[in-house]
């Protein structure tokens, strides 16, 4: 096993990795930009290396500086976390070239699955379902009509070179197809300098369900079940859970999706931890979407229901160990739900809200796991992702997990910045959520049906006024003495 590992990341995942390394008795090397010198990860790590200025392009994305730091500190391997360089094949190769172990899949697998079209080809070749459609561009309106007819309306026009929703059009009726192709094609030309568009069957209000896979470098590959991540804002996940409520309706779905995921990963020559994302339609047909060739933000959900430590396995597999778990050994127990705590204002279009955390009270107790990267007094930098922490509850069943999460949120207090805690309480209280009726369109409906909070009891308002008045008069000492009566001048 490694003796020292560098963590090429920041925030909560860097803290998660420091903890995971410490539990395996491996020394950790944190890296930091100018904005992160005082970060929790740097404080907690065994060693720390400075990378450069705050912008990622000058720090966390600098392959040369990171490799250099690893060599200087005598690290034998690098864990990339998620984001930043984690899905960068060039970085994985640079590690290998420098004699360092990249803790992740082979660079070749990252390359293959990094391109959406190549990944789709691999999935098709492996026999995994993909959203039906044409892979090549539309050549004529006649061809488009025939394809759309055979797919069945509604269909989706997508730009071949696309991304971010540009050049995308939903088409519900054949009479709209021609003008839609014209519009989409022109938008694509404008956005990507490539006017090619193709057709896909539109999956209406799909669920986003992904499968965790885990494989070693000796050809053994298994799946660890699903995570349902349908609740998203701006295409970013905010709540993830396992089991997906769908599994209650169709218990065979996990096996079918898991088998498909394993086939795709095997076809890609995959090893280490990875995730295959699927869309699932109303009839529980699932379609390969893409593969994330790294540890996922929401990995704790899988850790809690399977009892397996994904980070620990990532390290062991990278060090050459055999994955000693057979598919039939994997058990899913209870229910886990994760909330991503962001520095953002859910009442103002989820705009980021960085700044200084002037107060922090964190939840704990039965069934609660908090993976946090912040502390009271920390100034959340402007420069990075607004994810502060992940609050995860495990309980014997989904209803109990929901109750437990609400309880934990009631203990969680963050001052100085805005966070999405109250937003989670409202979702967790939502009846459609309780029934497990999820889709990527969930939040659209939620915002429409959400009732405004009732007026607070007048006593609560009075308490706020009293505390504001008395805490104004007496500057708070760093530690107050709770057993002596609180006194003030009148």
């Amino acid at each position, binding site marked *: 096993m490694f003796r020292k590992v560098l963590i090429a990341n920041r925030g909560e995942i860097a803290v998660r990795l420091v903890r995971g390394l410490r539990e395996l008795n491996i020394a950790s090397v944190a890296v930091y930009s100018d904005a992160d010198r005082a970060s929790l990860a740097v404080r907690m790590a065994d060693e720390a290396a400075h990378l450069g200025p705050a912008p990622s392009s000058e720090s966390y994305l600098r392959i040369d500086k990171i490799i250099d730091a690893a060599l200087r500190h005598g690290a034998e391997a690098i864990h990339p976390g998620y984001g930043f360089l984690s899905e960068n094949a060039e970085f994985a190769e640079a590690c290998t070239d420098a004699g360092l172990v990249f803790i992740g899949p082979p660079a070749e697998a990252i390359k293959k699955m990094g391109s959406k079209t190549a990944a789709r080809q691999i999935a098709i070749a492996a026999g995994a379902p993909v959203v039906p459609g044409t892979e090549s561009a539309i050549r004529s309106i006649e061809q488009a009509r025939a394809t759309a007819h055979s797919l069945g309306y509604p269909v989706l026009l997508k730009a071949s070179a696309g991304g971010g929703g540009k050049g995308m059009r939903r088409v519900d009726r054949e009479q709209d197809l021609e003008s839609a192709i014209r519009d989409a094609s022109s938008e694509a030309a404008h956005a990507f300098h490539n006017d090619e568009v193709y057709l896909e069957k539109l999956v209406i209000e799909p669920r986003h369900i992904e499968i965790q896979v885990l494989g070693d470098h000796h050809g053994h590959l298994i799946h660890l079940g699903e995570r349902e991540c349908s609740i998203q804002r701006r295409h970013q996940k905010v709540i993830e859970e396992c089991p997906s409520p769908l599994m209650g309706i169709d218990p065979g779905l996990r096996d079918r999706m898991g088998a498909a995921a394993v086939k795709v990963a095997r076809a890609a020559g995959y090893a280490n931890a990875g995730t295959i994302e699927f869309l699932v339609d109303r009839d529980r047909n699932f379609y390969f979407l893409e593969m994330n060739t790294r540890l996922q933000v929401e990995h704790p959900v899988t850790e809690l229901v399977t009892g397996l430590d994904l980070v620990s396995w990532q390290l062991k597999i990278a060090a050459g160990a055999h994955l000693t778990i057979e598919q039939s050994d994997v058990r899913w127990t209870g229910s886990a739900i994760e909330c991503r705590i962001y520095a953002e204002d859910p009442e103002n279009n989820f705009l980021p*809200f960085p700044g200084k955390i002037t*107060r922090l009270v964190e939840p704990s107790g039965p069934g609660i796991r908090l993976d946090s990267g912040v502390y009271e007094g920390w100034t959340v930098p*402007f420069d990075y992702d607004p994810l502060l922490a992940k609050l995860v509850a495990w309980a014997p069943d989904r209803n109990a997990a929901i109750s437990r999460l609400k309880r934990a949120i009631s203990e969680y207090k963050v001052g100085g910045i805005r966070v999405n805690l109250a937003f989670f309480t409202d979702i967790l209280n939502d009846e459609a959520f309780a029934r497990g009726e999820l889709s990527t369109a969930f939040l659209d409906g939620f915002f429409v049906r959400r009732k405004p909070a009732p007026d607070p009891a007048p*006593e609560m*308002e009075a308490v706020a006024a009293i505390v504001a008045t008395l805490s104004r008069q007496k500057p708070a000492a760093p530690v107050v003495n*709770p057993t002596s009566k609180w006194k003030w001048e009148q």
Partner: protein
Amino acid sequence: MKLDVIVNGREGELRLEGSRFEYNGMVRDYSMEASGPGIFSLLIDGRSYQATVLSPGTIQVNDRIFSVEVFDPRELRARSSAGASAGRQNIVAPMPGKVVRILISVGDTIEAGQGLIVVEAMKMQNEMKSPKAGTVVELKTTEGATVVAGEILVVIE
């Protein structure tokens, strides 16, 4: 002790006498203890209220967050008689961040919905639009400046 307060925008009156308070006519006995850094426990009629000072003037009571301003009565009266000059509209930063582009200049005539300033934080850009037609009378920031939420950036008349 008698004070005027503004709680979540509503004016109120608070009177504290020993272990008794009067708030907008409601009179109750209470007990208050510090119960953690910036955290207070209040008991009123046997009910327990947890109050956390999130930041000065922002108090969370149980699951609700209140923004509270406290004045002695004279202060408040002076304040309300001032008021904002009619027709002027402040455009404030919706989030902390960096001003990446300024799309107008002082003196420009602008339309409702016209973009004024682009603020960026955490890779998200937010274009602030004018809520009404008018003229730019003040520009209180520069490109590259760091702003806090609620900071006045532009004044329209």
